């Protein structure tokens, strides 16, 4: 009997060991690191309490990075939601080649981010890039894209949207497929037009799916690093430096372990707040099932 009760824990034992080493240990260790001054070594340190956290409040680079992180996530997730929802509605119709189109829509999401970002980088090139050529054809002024502090962040957000919209599409499409048809039929009988159908019938039923997609994408965009690092390394003039990039630079370029750890603790806190919000939503959807 005791053996029977132990069975689930014996089965998950190996996974629990991995979680202790690669989840609990790094989290506790990072918290401790953020309370220490390492100087230039990784072994010798002195305890400094909350000194780094007090410094953060006065660090303009940190505050700007936090702002950029929020703009980056908020902007690219909003754009991905709109684009992804349009794509889902397109794919929800039956037309010849719908399966092939669906596959093509998915590719940006799974292609290697470093490789895609490199190609985007060549397309953004202000003198030879094809994007400026398109602008020229359309009679619009050319842009400096990544080369200017004014447009660098928004250029990367375009790439992020391109990579994120397919994910939103998949989730909204799953939501559309699982939608009951009766409310739609009765709305049609009552003479609702297309816009009314969307606003008052379809959208309320899709809300849960869209919230899931949005929150997943917010968390994923807060974690974005490869495309920013490949395209601008946070520049020019730190114009695209998010918290993740700032934390990376502090920890691995300046080897400022203590202060870097404090910045990363703040990033972690941001993700934690959003995740708890998400789990609250998720629990509610479990209860209503």
């Amino acid at each position: 009997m005791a053996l029977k009760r132990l069975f689930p824990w014996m089965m998950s034992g190996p996974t629990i060991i991995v979680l202790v080493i690669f989840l609990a240990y790094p989290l506790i260790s990072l918290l401790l690191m953020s309370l220490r001054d390492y100087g230039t070594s990784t072994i010798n340190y002195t305890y400094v309490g909350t000194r780094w956290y007090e410094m953060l409040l006065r660090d303009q680079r940190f505050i700007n990075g936090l702002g950029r992180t929020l703009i980056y996530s908020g902007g690219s997730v909003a754009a991905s939601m709109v684009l992804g929802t349009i794509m889902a509605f397109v794919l929800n119709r039956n037309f010849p080649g719908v399966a092939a189109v669906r596959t093509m829509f998915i590719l940006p999401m799974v292609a290697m981010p470093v490789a895609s970002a490199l190609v985007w980088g060549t397309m953004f090139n202000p003198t030879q890039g094809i994007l400026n050529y398109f602008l020229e054809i359309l009679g619009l002024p050319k842009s400096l894209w990544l080369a200017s502090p004014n447009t660098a962040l928004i250029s990367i957000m375009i790439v992020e949207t391109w990579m994120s919209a397919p994910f939103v599409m998949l989730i909204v499409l799953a939501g559309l497929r699982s939608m009951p048809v009766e409310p739609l039929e009765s709305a049609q009988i009552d003479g609702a037009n297309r816009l009314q159908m969307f606003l008052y019938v379809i959208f309320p039923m899709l809300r849960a799916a869209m919230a899931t997609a949005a929150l997943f994408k917010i968390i994923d965009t807060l974690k974005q690093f490869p495309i920013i690092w490949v395209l601008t390394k946070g520049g020019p003039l730190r114009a695209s430096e998010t918290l993740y990039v700032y934390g990376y630079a502090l920890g691995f370029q300046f080897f400022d372990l203590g202060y870097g750890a404090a910045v990363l603790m703040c990033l972690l806190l941001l993700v934690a707040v959003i995740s708890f919000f998400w789990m609250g939503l998720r629990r509610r959807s479990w209860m209503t099932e």
Partner: protein
Amino acid sequence: MAGQGVQAVSSAAIRARSTTQQRIMQAVNQVPFYLLVTFLLIIFMFVFFWMVLTSFKLPRDVTVYPPLLVFEPTLQNYQNVLEKTPFMQQLGNSIIIALGSVGLGMVLGLPAAYAMARFKLPGLSLAILVMRMIPTIVFMLPLFVAYQQMGLIDTHIGLILSHLILTLPLTVWVMISFFEDVPPEVEQSAMVDGCSRFGVFWRIAVPLSLPGMVVTSILAFIQSWNNFIFVLILGGSRTTTLPLAVFNFMGFEMLDFGGVAAVATMLSLPVMVLTIIVQRWLVQGLTLGAVKS
């Protein structure tokens, strides 16, 4: 009588005209829809089209402005990458690390997924979710220090272990829903026949979930294959994987767009093929089962 005849004829004509009109109108109504599909396809596929196109251009054609659509194709870029860079070695590193972390993730994660599917372990599910949500950089500072002290920097085993952070949560969560699909009656009758709890897992649940394991492995493989941050921090010259290699390649040969495009094409193709195989399960895999397809 004649009047009635004319009326009948004309109403028939009106009816005929209105059906052709309707058909034309229906076709016309479809036009904006197909325009929208084409527009979206161009937006989402252009990068890949441009990547493949550029990879076949000679250096002199790459930097021409306005960009060329028609040019003399060449395999020179691919040849350069294969001959002048340690591409094959880096490909080997990528494959070793991806297969290692997927395999290890399976061995460790399968029993846990089964236990969670049958016994619901809320604390463990929460911990796994947390691991998926946390930005990877948060793990990197402590791991970097620990790896340095243990001499694990720039080792294959070190990178394989670190990639468990990617593959293990995914494996556990996706496999939970596949194990839940195994009918409990089959398991119960096996237990009546004297099979142990572990025997049920190993001889019944695992074989019945083989297709799910293939899907899970492919999803985990893509995660490991695409990852950049772990190898950037914990890797080195001996363990450089392809994402880091292509990143370094850009640094050294900033203007060799053709070469960059050739590497990018070679790196993206395998993942695209795998994606097409598992696309039915993508939602489940990428949301850790938050949405079931």
